[in-house]
């Protein structure tokens, strides 16, 4: 039994590590691109919808919430004998290509996964492309629009389904001459339907380095279920000011995250071979209020989720679940002038975890309940939408949980279980991670952006020095990251 628990523990830690890596990759894979396809469709320049991509302007937010509908080109239209329109299809498909090239340097190399005392080759890596995405976006038919993305990821060396948002939207004029928009987005990433850049799907940091050390904890709404769930989110927008959304997500795991059903082969309903399977339909909500004054827009809002998850991974997908309840607040102040634009924004998420599946049994967690919080705030300034800088701060806190964050000691290499490499665990079981992020940006064209980013950790996984019990310090995980974005 002890052996079995031990292996379950290891598998849980590995799963958690894998989950963290997946979550991180997901964050990396979440750029809300300034899509040339939208520019092609609307005949408008990128600056209509974006300050500089991916940040949306008021116009961009309205365009998104109205179902990507503005149309500049010719439609192929067919009507029946009664004159009823059967199709209004854009004559040219709205496609775009999105390429990111990244070069990352860690402050200190990580240990070799096979040879004791050796280190990784180099401190980071060059990825060409870090990501390459093929996108379809825009109008499908009157009131129906889409934003769908297939991405090649360098680290995974595969093409995957990325952000996918199909939506219906309509706007009516109320008796007092105010607009009232409503719609439904069917998507695969909680918060992707949201039009502000404070929520996780399109929030700061927009594209973190893919080669980096993932911190050990984070609330589940921070991309923890992205691309492994799907569901409808209904929303309303009153007078371009008050926004409310309510959605429900169901598990929809694919690829390596869902090995499928071993009895039927690749397809079929998931069973305990899968990990972290959401139980039933789980709610997500969002409210926001925007006030526009002169060149400023102010937004305050909140969002949250309540996800119940079976750990799986060899345990039957029945009985108790781990429940993750997230409540978050966010704000954004955006200034858009003729030559200068600046944005101050932030979000704070608090997650309460009720670990009924793992806690009482000691299956991977010490406590029956845990909590995690996440703070992200940043200030960005652009001059003539060409030269920009960002200063940001991100901070994760949480309850100490030795088993969850440190298992039975420093993380051992999957390639050499005798080798305690550390790096991704927290020796004291405290998940606290604080980092400052600075960026210098240059956008020679509206669809070409170069970002030089530096991330400095003052604390990582609960300590500033020797956080993993193997001698690694928080600042060893600092990254210098050069990113080039091309959208065409």
């Amino acid at each position, binding site marked *: 039994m002890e052996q079995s628990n031990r292996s379950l523990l290891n598998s849980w830690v590995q799963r958690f590590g894998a989950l963290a890596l997946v979550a991180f990759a997901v964050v990396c894979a979440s750029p809300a691109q300034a899509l040339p396809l939208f520019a092609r469709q*609307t*005949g*408008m*320049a990128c*600056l*209509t919808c974006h300050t500089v991509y991916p940040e949306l302007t*008021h*116009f961009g937010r*309205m*365009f998104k919430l*109205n179902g990507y509908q*503005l*149309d*500049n080109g010719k439609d192929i239209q067919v009507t029946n004998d009664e004159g009823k329109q059967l199709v209004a299809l854009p004559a040219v498909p709205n496609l775009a290509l999105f390429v990111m090239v990244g070069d990352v340097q860690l402050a200190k190399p990580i240990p070799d996964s096979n040879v004791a005392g050796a280190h990784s080759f180099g401190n980071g890596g060059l990825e060409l492309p870090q990501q390459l995405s093929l996108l379809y976006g825009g109008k499908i038919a009157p009131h129906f629009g889409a934003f769908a993305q297939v991405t090649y990821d360098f680290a995974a060396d595969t093409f995957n389904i990325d952000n996918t948002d199909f939506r219906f939207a309509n*706007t*009516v*004029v109320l008796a007092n*001459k*105010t*607009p009232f*928009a409503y719609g439904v987005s069917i998507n695969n990433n909680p918060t992707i339907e949201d039009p502000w850049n404070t929520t996780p799907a399109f929030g700061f940091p927009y594209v973190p380095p893919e080669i980096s050390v993932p911190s050990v904890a984070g609330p589940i709404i921070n991309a923890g279920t992205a691309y492994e769930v799907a569901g409808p989110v209904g929303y309303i927008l009153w*007078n*371009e000011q008050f926004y409310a959304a309510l959605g429900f997500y169901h598990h929809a795991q694919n690829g390596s995250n869902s090995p499928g059903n071993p009895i039927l082969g690749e397809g079929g309903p998931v069973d305990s071979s899968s990990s972290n399977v959401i139980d039933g339909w789980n709610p997500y909500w969002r409210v926001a209020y925007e006030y*526009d*004054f*002169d*060149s400023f827009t102010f937004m305050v809002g909140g969002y949250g989720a309540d996800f119940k998850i079976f750990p799986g991974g060899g345990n039957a997908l029945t009985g108790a679940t781990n429940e993750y309840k997230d409540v978050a607040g966010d704000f954004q102040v955006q200034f*858009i*002038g*003729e030559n200068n634009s600046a944005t101050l924004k932030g979000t704070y998420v608090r997650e309460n975890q009720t670990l009924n599946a793992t806690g009482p049994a000691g299956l991977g967690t010490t406590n029956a309940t845990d909590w995690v919080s996440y703070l992200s705030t940043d200030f960005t300034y652009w001059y003539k939408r060409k030269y920009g800088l960002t200063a940001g701060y991100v901070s994760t806190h949480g309850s100490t949980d030795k088993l969850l964050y440190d298992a039975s000691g420093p993380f051992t290499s999957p390639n050499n279980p005798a080798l305690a490499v550390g790096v991704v665990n927290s020796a004291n079981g405290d998940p606290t991670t604080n980092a400052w992020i600075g960026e210098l940006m240059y956008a020679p064209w509206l669809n070409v952006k170069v970002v030089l980013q530096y991330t400095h950790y003052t604390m990582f996984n609960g300590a500033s020095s020797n956080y993993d019990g193997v001698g690694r310090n928080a600042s060893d995980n600092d990254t210098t990251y050069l990113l080039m974005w091309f959208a065409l």
Partner: protein
Amino acid sequence: MKTTKLTVLAIAASAALFSMSAARAQDAAPEVSPADAAWAENMAVTKCQWCHGPQGHSISPIYPALAGQKAWYIVEQLQLFKAQTRADPYARGYMWGMAAQLTDTQMNALAAYFSKQTPFGGQKVPFQNAADVSHGKSVYTEGVAANGVAPCSACHQDDASGNDQFPRLAGQHASYLQKQLRAFHSGSREQVVMNGIVATLQEPEMEAVAAYLESLH
């Protein structure tokens, strides 16, 4: 100097005649059917409002207020956007796309809708410089004799409300007006009258006259 001033006035007068002839066909308020009027109101509230604000009262000074603007002027500008001949940067970036699919009937209906909205009046303008307003009033009503700039009021009316040949300026956002004056100055927005009028207008005077016109909010 006197000769220069007279020359400018002569240009202005001849250009005004040109403009009048161009505008004559649109002097009468466009005929708009109830169905087209309903379409225009729906379009204005559900789309135009994203930038131009509720009932044409734009909030961000990047975008011009349209409430109370002369219908003929709105139609003319929409036609120029559609033909892609008004080529100042914001016209290219925003309005070329927006106007591309509008029919003449739709343009007339939108123009009629916005022209009937109550223009800005009596509201406090944020971030206004009193010295600029005072200087701007003299530029608007008296011109700049030293540089041979004719008074704006000669064409745009004393209260800047415009008429059948010249657009309304009163209450317009100052930064939008400055942007247009610069575009006329550089030639990126071609308009024969204004290209001539602002040829010798200096940047501080552009700022001042724009502030004054916005103060008529």
